[in-house]
């Protein structure tokens, strides 16, 4: 069973919740799919077992031989990434058009390292994560790679927990592919509602069963109610409502899990959420102890 935690909007509490659920579920494999700004390892990883560079994109490179400045590459490149035979690495998508049109063999396509895949030890099991090269192309491919790394490391994980990236572009689509269940963490705000709508539309397209929880629901009870109505309309099970709780901020400041404060209202709500989630996972045919 692959369970993905997503939100559309950033900063709604995905990682905080993912860390708590990783502890509660005892999941043997946790994957941090937010490769552009990964944080889960700060809470869960104890030490790194393996680091491996990953080339997930190509880039055009100039050769030593002379460029005649014919300008064909510039004319044909649709990304504005090459001028006077010089490649702008920030803009090059590695499509190979310039290499193909160059009459002088001045250009070649080379592999580009887009990130480092890391396998880390957690207290329950293993974590697969990545450190993406800043500004790199192909964050989706990197996500696919660490998911593959996760499957190889723990081939028969009963529960694989995935902390998703914000947004709904390629990295989110790569995170969603093949997941059986997704938990949407919606923030009780107008922006949270708008982004929850968009992520639910994507989950529907990708045919991933969605569950939803509202974080800091009491910050805006009206928006929280609207999110509940959205769940009703779309028949999305609401599996939890987590209150605003200063202890969460305290935990974040000290790089601790919220569960370190088990009597706090937020931790209590997460315990209840996990109970509900566990029965949903069981219904889906997943088995967890």
């Amino acid at each position, binding site marked *: 069973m692959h369970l993905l935690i997503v939100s559309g909007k950033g900063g709604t509490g995905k990682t905080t919740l993912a860390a708590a659920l990783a502890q509660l579920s005892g999941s043997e494999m946790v994957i941090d799919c937010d490769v552009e700004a990964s944080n889960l390892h*700060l809470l869960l990883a104890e030490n790194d077992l393996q680091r491996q560079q990953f080339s997930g994109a190509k880039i055009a490179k100039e050769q030593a031989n002379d460029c005649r400045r014919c300008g064909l590459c510039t004319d044909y490149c649709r990304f504005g990434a090459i001028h006077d035979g010089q490649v702008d690495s920030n803009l090059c998508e590695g499509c190979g058009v310039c290499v193909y049109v160059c009459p002088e063999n001045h250009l070649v396509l080379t592999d580009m390292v887009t990130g480092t895949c890391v396998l880390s030890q957690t207290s329950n099991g293993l974590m697969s994560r990545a450190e993406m090269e800043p*500004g790199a192309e192909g964050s989706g491919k990197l996500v696919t790679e660490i998911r593959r790394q996760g499957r190889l490391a723990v081939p028969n994980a009963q529960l694989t927990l995935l902390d998703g990236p914000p947004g709904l572009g390629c990295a989110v689509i790569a995170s969603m592919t093949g997941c059986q269940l997704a938990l949407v963490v919606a923030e009780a*705000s107008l922006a949270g509602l708008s982004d929850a709508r968009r992520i639910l539309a994507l989950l529907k397209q990708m045919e991933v069963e969605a569950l939803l929880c509202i974080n800091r629901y009491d910050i805006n009870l009206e928006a929280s109610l609207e999110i509940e109505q959205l769940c009703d309309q779309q028949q999305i099970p609401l599996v939890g409502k987590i209150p605003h709780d200063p202890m969460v901020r305290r935990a974040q400041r000290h790089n601790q899990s919220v569960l370190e404060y088990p009597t706090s209202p937020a931790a209590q709500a997460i315990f209840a959420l996990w109970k509900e989630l566990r029965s949903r996972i069981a219904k889906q045919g997943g088995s967890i102890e």
Partner: protein
Amino acid sequence: MNIAVLSGKGGTGKTTVAVNLARVLHCRYVDSDVEAPNGFLFLQPDIQDKADVSVQIPQIDEQRCNYCLACVKHCQFNALFGTDSSIVFFEKLCHSCGLCSLVCKQNAIKEVPRRVGYVEFGSSAGAECWQGVLIPGEPVTGPVIDALKARLDGDLSIIDCPPGSSCSVVAAADKTDLALLVTEPTPFGVHDLHMAVQVTEKLNLPRAIIINRSEGQDAIIQDYANATGIPIIGRLPFSLEAAQIVSRGELLVDKEEWRQRFQNLAEAVRELIACTS
């Protein structure tokens, strides 16, 4: 003058800073977080113009195709798959580079547009507001962001960037004049701030830090700023009330106490602009 607002970490307050700052600076606001655009919820602009964003994708004429598979072999994105009697195209993998039609000796490939998003142009309180919106299910954000950036004309614009540190952030922040890095004083905040800083380094942008949900000293960010030499130009204090105002889609600058804070921030930004230009 284009100012990029970025953060690395999502939910640190990029949009809150960008919309309120745009309001006090009376300048254009551009929402380039096309995966999760929220700025218009706050600014409520009257929309005056809207345009679809399309990308070019190949259409294969099976009458002309001789299944040489040159297009399949050349495509770097695995968007084409072929056998000796058919070619299958995966539109979501296509980067619209046009190489397949270039390599086709049979002239069997024609390019046709496919809609991936749209851009909207409006105004609010006398200032322009632009946004790009990616259609759910579309993986590639670049064309929607580029459609916004192609219209920039030199007038002061605040560009609300996507979170993260990938090519979407590069597309949004590239060729801007100044990066404002919004962060929060937590280990997550500083970790992701560093990711954003590395992107701005790659793009050669002058930059400054704004601390949101500040708790006074913010040692964790202050230490980072000292170590990197990036100035902290403003602090917005942690406030439950502010969180509630923002959650309702209201502008903080409509409240007197916050208006003053954003005016001070705008002043600091004006000074930076004077230094960089």
